């Protein structure tokens, strides 16, 4: 075992494809993901955990048979060596042989050797925090002196993906992803505030600025007011909008809609593509090339599902309008499910989105300035589907709900349990601000490439009061 040779990603792919051909596979795709990450976590003004991790994963997708009769076998492993690669490929081919034809079988995506193919994986390390860590340490000491508590997490990871297929495709793409998320509490723990931001390299993250914003919000909470449950005029800042819209984004499955089991289904059968969801000029789009939100420009699927297919690996992703001018334009599909629902072309999921409202400008603070009486949220939490028929979601407000009176924040109010549908909110919001990069409290750790506007909803449904503070 210790004498086995670690292979480069490129060698893993070339050898894997050769081995699959030698085993009699009709087609093969090999995905190699090389990851490195470094994180810091703190609570109660001190470090709690940390880590520096390297990871590697190899996925072999072997296909046997031709045309409609093609079956696939998928096997994934970490830490592949020259010796174990042979076993993995054999297992994938054997699994494909033992499987019935796959419904989603399509010809493998062809292509040529893409840019940068020969390059080594990009990496990150704890050094990404060289400036951030000492500054963070200073804010933790300062918080202690000022009788406040800080809790947070900083993560940076770099993933380099290599995709090769027996149809000639050779793609390499490296992507960094990072974020910081920090909670501040008053000395007696009765008040809580939160800030979060996504970053590519931590050069744009200033722990002192985060601390200043937390302080501003804890200042708002020096007066607390009890507000009852009910429907309230509510300003959702970009983070809270991302909390809700990320869930909507995940409901855009074309097959579920076509089969009558989603909020995007019509009663008579079929999807609501072409229907108006909002009378306002709302747009939801994904594009792998969005500046600042760049993501993988080709499809990556380790398992087939409603909108993904292992046969589609490497498929070029391009800008896709899900909602344009308030109208539902596309639902997510693989090549197979696009055909099934009668869509002109596949629209696979893309790992980012931008929600915008034509003509909207201004910030959350501007929406506050225009509100006579209502609530300002920080973020939402523990969001779960209650009823997929209406896309009714439940969840809680968290770490700062504020009272707005005559255009100013005048105090902190209690938390609430809410029941709301993000699809309905797109039809009901009464004012919006400019779209800005956002970081969802609920989903940002995993899905951080979002840009959203702040929204004012005239009648947000706060279902009950939560004592949490």
């Amino acid at each position, binding site marked *: 075992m210790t004498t086995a040779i670690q292979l480069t990603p490129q060698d893993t792919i070339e050898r894997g494809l050769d081995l699959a051909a030698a085993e009699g596979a009709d087609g093969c795709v090999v995905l190699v993901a090389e990851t490195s990450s470094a994180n810091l976590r703190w609570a109660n003004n001190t470090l709690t955990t940390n880590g520096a*991790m390297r990871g590697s994963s190899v996925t072999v997708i072997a296909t046997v048979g031709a045309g409609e009769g093609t079956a696939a076998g*998928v096997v994934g492993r970490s830490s592949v060596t020259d010796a174990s690669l042979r076993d993995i490929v054999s297992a994938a081919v054997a699994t494909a042989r033992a499987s019935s034809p796959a419904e989603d079988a399509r010809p493998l995506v062809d292509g040529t050797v893409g840019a940068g193919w020969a390059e080594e994986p990009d990496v990150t390390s704890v050094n990404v925090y060289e400036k951030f860590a000492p500054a963070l340490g200073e804010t933790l000491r300062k918080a202690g002196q000022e009788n406040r508590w800080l*809790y947070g997490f900083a993560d940076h990871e770099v993933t380099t993906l290599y995709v090769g297929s027996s149809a000639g495709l050779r793609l390499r793409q490296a992507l960094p992803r990072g974020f910081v998320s920090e909670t501040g509490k008053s000395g007696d723990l009765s008040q809580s505030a939160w800030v979060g931001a996504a970053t590519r390299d931590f050069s744009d993250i200033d722990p002192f600025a985060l601390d200043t914003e937390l302080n501003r919000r804890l200042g708002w909470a020096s007066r607390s007011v009890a507000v009852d449950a009910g429907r309230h005029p509510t300003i959702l800042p970009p983070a809270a909008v991302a909390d809700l819209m990320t869930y909507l984004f995940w409901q855009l499955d074309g097959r579920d809609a076509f089969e009558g089991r989603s909020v995007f289904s019509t009663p008579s059968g079929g999807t609501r593509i072409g229907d108006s969801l909002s009378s306002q000029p709302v747009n939801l789009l994904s594009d792998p090339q969005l500046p600042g939100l760049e993501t993988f420009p080709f499809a990556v699927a380790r398992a087939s599902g409603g909108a993904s297919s292992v046969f589609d690996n490497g498929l070029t992703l391009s800008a896709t309008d899900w909602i344009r001018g308030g109208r539902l334009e596309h639902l997510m599909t693989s090549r197979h499910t696009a055909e099934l629902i009668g869509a002109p072309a596949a629209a696979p999921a893309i790992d980012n989105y931008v929600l915008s409202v034509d003509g909207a400008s201004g910030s959350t603070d501007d929406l506050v300035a225009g509100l006579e009486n209502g609530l300002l949220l920080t973020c939402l939490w523990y969001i779960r589907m209650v009823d997929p028929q209406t896309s009714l979601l439940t969840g809680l407000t968290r770490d700062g709900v504020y009272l707005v009176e005559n255009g100013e924040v005048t105090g902190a109010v209690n938390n609430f349990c809410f029941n709301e549908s993000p699809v309905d909110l797109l039809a009901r919001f009464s004012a919006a601000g400019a779209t800005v990069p956002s970081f969802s409290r609920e989903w940002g750790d995993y899905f951080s490439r979002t840009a959203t506007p702040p929204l004012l909803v005239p009648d947000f449904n706060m279902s009950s009061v939560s004592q949490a503070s």
Partner: protein
Amino acid sequence: MPEVDASFLALPRHELAEAALQRARDLGATFAEFRLERIRSESIALRDSLLESATDDEDLGLAVRVIHDGTWGFAAGVALTTDEAVQVAEQAVNMAQVARPINAEPIELADEPVYDDVSWVSSYEIDPFSVPRAEKVALLTDYSDRLLKADGVAHVSVHVASVHECKFYANTEGTSYTQQRVRIGPDITAYAVDHDSGRFDSMSSCVPPAGRGWEYLTGTGWNWDDELAQIPGWLAEKMAAPSVEAGTYDVVVDPSNLWLTIHESIGHATELDRALGYEANYAGTSFATTDKLNTLQYGSPVMHVTGDRTAEHGLSTVGYDDEGVAGQQWDLVKDGILVGYQVDRRMAKVNEDLLGTPRSNGCAYADSSGHIPIQRMANVSLQPAEGGPSTEDLIGRVQNGIYIVGDKSWSIDMQRYNFQFTGQRFYKITDGKLDGQLRDVAYQATTTDFWGSMEAVGGPQTYVLGGALNCGKAQPGQSGAVSHGCPSALFRSVRILNTTQEAGR
């Protein structure tokens, strides 16, 4: 009784551990631990009786955690060479050094006896990875067909996740163990669509995931024939059921639903790391703070909740935890009063006086070699009443109420006060008898009010071990599997919402 997989025992586990621990010692670490983990996972999904996807994954790697100059350092790698083990130990020490300026509390650990090269294997009969894929798919296709061919069923989804986890652990105190655990989680749902109204709904099997092998799918521990025969009828009745009138009702909650309420409102609330604020930025804190230990009235006097890592087939059951602590059982809530927490070795040491014991109760867990061990949930279970009533007896005590079966939607706030749950089936109770299904039901309550309203728990004959494979916690996020046993129970005056009204329809 299964034994640890020979292919895992063939890995150079002692050699890698010695190299890593020696390097850590040489660099000045006062404590170091090494983990080698191999996690095999398989996921099979069928959609309308056709195989949609089947994946077979294996995650294999090693990790080193050190205490250096009073500060934790953690690092992980994937190559199984002594060079890599040494390098990972060096990275862990480096991590501790970088982190030292932001660490204000020197790390110390609670003592634990030394276990020298011991071995432990969980209780199961058939390793799911020893069963041919085609045989598994054939069985699941049969189960799917039984539903899909029934009247009123438009679609069926079937998913089975299987995990085979091997771990070798060694630390500088002299403990080393090899442990193997197997778990499986089936998920079967039938869907109905009414094309006149556009209304759709679903009915899922109540089968919980369990620390069992493939035998679970063939009838050991679950009656598939009976449940699959009933699901289409239950679904049709739900589609035709009247919408609930929102209000206050007495409810009898079946174990298939109550386990999740226990998980959210007791399991997470009695994690000491949450009570101490370590999760304040992510999973949240707890209302059950340490100043309330031994005084907080958590619920009614019939409430007795234990934590354990020992229950047979429990998903959180282990021989030893990820800090080398042996599995135990202890009280969390006794006679309705908060009396304990779930802890790891560091929290046990710091809070020794508060907890009244110098020992960790063994709740450290990392979900893979790539992640740091944190305090994770034990099996947290509500104990039945000896000689207690049957579910029918509990229903018999209710004049106008609802009997809730199966879990579905769930949510709770960051301090575990306020929650909302739905379910698979809701039966109206009229004069002590079931009176047909209702739909659009959710129950909402504050944790201590809800448990305070628990008038009676069922007897051992109603006790079922439920659970989840996918409990999330920590940053970076880790997934944990945990079981919760409970009897049926009767609650008075619970707030019931109508979810269609909540959606403003």
